[in-house]
């Protein structure tokens, strides 16, 4: 079930936040954040909320479900 996201765009809108910095803020490795950003790994709901909270956005503005 593909989950698209706008993390890359949001990182740049938030002062070019690096993947490493965002990963540290939400408590995952940089490789995990890269996998999420590339839509290769779908985060748990808890992690998705943590990422959305960093950007101060509701969940559906960060992650979108893409029907197959």
């Amino acid at each position, binding site marked *: 079930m593909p989950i698209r996201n706008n993390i890359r765009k949001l990182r740049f809108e938030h002062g070019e936040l690096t993947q490493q910095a965002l990963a540290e803020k939400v*408590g995952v*490795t940089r*490789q995990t954040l890269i*996998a999420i950003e590339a839509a290769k*790994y779908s985060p*748990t709901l808890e992690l998705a909320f943590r990422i959305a909270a960093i950007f101060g956005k509701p969940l559906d503005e960060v992650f979108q479900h893409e029907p197959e």
Partner: protein
Amino acid sequence: MDMSFREKSAWACLVTTGVVFVPYFAFIAQLASNGELILPRVVVAFVAAVLAQIVLVSVYMMVIALRTRQEPRDERDTAIESRAFRWAHWTLVIALWLLVLGGVFLAPVFPQLISVVFVGQLALLSFVLSELVHYGTLVHGYRRGY
């Protein structure tokens, strides 16, 4: 390739297990085909293989630890590890059942093959195969993202 400490560790274990145990089982197969599969030779080969793996893994892990930032396990690591354990578990179960069924059906046909040492080596092969599947699944999971 940008790899985490855990992915590098998985590669280290996969490569060293293959490098050590493929020649080990080739040697065991050679002994078996020559009718020389006796306990003292097998024990020496096994101890040598285990020591070789301990040394290789230790050296590799020290190099990785010095060159790679270590981070706590996150949810993706846990998900990948769960899948790797599940695949390894089924590999071990299937291999051991094949060993048991093979013993039951082949023992009357090839009685010369069935010895404690031979069956022990097949059991060890099952464990090593499940380890290879475990580390291989870890590496595959990290490479594809999940």
